[in-house]
């Protein structure tokens, strides 16, 4: 039982900085970044359906005022959009390896 | 062959009597006793189609249980290509067959289809049924007042009942 006290404090400390709830401004910034990446992927005609659903989830969460989830969803959307861009770029040459010759 | 108009039950029975006599003329059919009443009525077996369990449905439709018979060749795929369209057919080498029905054990309602085989119609049917999931398909044949059955498992990967 004695050990758990410092452990609990340690945990609380590590969470302290992130404890501040995300607010609308954080969401707007995260969402804008995600949307930009998504548009770039669309420009390369290589969008993923999961990016779009993550963006929608972010908007829905933000509408509900849950900015923590909205930011998280925006970050996920951005990551997915970026991955689809990496895929599009790498496939510019990679497809030839699969071609039947 | 008498061609009377206005379809109603009594006309059907007279016709059947007349038909079997007429067919006698063709000489290839033994004189058949009037077909068993249980499955000859015109009424749509509403109750049987509502029952979930196969045994109850068979009892509701025919009033007794069936015994397996190797005279019923039940043809169904090993793995259904799609649960919504499963081609199932049956060929029966019993004689005086009056009714054939198909049951899919674990469908929402076990009884899928029931066919009445009047005099002169061959006891062989092909149809396409829906199957909710991997389960047994059973063909029940009523011949000369007795009930026979054949069963085959059909694997289903995509359920056919939708929803």
């Amino acid at each position, binding site marked *: 039982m004695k050990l758990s006290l410092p452990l609990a404090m340690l945990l609380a400390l590590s969470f302290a900085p992130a404890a501040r709830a995300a607010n609308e401004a954080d969401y707007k910034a995260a969402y804008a970044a995600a949307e930009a990446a998504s548009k770039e992927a669309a420009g390369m005609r290589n969008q993923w*359906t999961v990016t779009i659903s993550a963006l929608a989830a972010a908007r829905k969460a933000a509408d509900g005022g849950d900015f923590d989830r909205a930011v998280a969803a925006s970050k996920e959307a951005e*990551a997915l959009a970026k*991955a689809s861009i990496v895929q599009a770029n790498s496939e510019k040459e990679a497809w030839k390896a699969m071609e039947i010759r | 062959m008498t061609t009377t108009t206005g379809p109603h039950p009594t006309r059907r029975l007279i016709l059947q009597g007349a038909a079997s006599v007429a067919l006698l003329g063709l000489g290839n059919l033994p004189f058949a006793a009037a077909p068993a009443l249980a499955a000859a009525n015109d009424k749509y077996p509403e109750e049987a189609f509502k029952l979930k369990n196969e045994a109850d449905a068979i009892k509701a439709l025919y009033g007794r249980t069936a015994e397996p018979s190797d005279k019923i060749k039940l043809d169904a795929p090993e793995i259904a290509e799609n649960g919504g369209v499963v081609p199932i057919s049956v060929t029966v080498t019993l004689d005086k067959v009056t009714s054939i029905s198909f049951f899919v054990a674990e469908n929402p309602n076990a009884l899928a289809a029931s066919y009445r085989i009047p005099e002169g119609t061959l006891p062989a049917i092909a149809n396409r049924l829906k199957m909710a999931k991997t389960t047994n398909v059973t063909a029940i044949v009523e011949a000369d007042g007795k009930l026979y059955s054949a069963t085959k498992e059909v694997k289903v990967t995509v359920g056919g009942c939708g929803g």
Partner: protein
Amino acid sequence: MKPRSALLLGSLSAALVAFALTSPRVVAADKVDPVADAKAFRNFFFQKFPDVKHEDFVNGPYSMNADMKRQWQEKEEFPPYEFALDAGKEMFATPFKNGKTYADCFPNGGIGIRQNYPYFDEKEGKVVTLELALNRCREANGEAPYSYVKDEMASLTAYMAFTSRGKPMDIRIPDDPRALAAFENGKRYFYTRRGQLNFSCASCHVQSPGERIRAEILAPALGILNAMPIYRSEWSGMGTTSRRFVTCNSQTRAVPLEPQADEYRDVEYFLSYVANGLPISGPGARP
């Protein structure tokens, strides 16, 4: 969902990097040679499936699995696309408001010509598919175009395919750099991985035809469009080539392009050309 997709994301980018490194052969910008490509493409399938008769490849999954083939043949006795076929025949004969019919837009009255589609239109400098030509015919005669993924278009192409049944696919590539570019673009699209699942058409239809993906047996890419349009039990309805491309994209979690986008027209051009000589078997029935 979040931890799982992050994990998937990590593994995906790692795989991509590894993949890019391992492809040693940096291919010199070789000249586009459709004839050689087609020969290599067909030999790949003929060698991979030596006991499948060449013309049987157009039957897709049914050329790969005997039990499925039997179920298909039973369905073919009285196929579910019978209604689309009759509807298409009727629509083909019904004149537009201006009195013209589809027969006036197509060579030979639209009968027995499906095997020449898609073709490369030298005026437009692009590939024109049968579905596109049908809608252009409607618009030229003051009628609203049909949706590329709905039943009306499927009925028309079903009837036109039926009138060409058995005829060998006969796609020509004129000696025009834009046509060669379209063929190459189609080939590129066919082999390009897309969607979060990171599949290309080839991942399923070249690497693992005959195997199952969830409930379905994968069709070989050779002759995969010869049976279009198809009645799919899964859709319990007709599907045009456009509908098939769009759904395939979304199944790999890639956002589909608009129907009849250049890439779709070019990949149809590529897939049809490499299937030259194999019989038209549309309209088809599929799982």
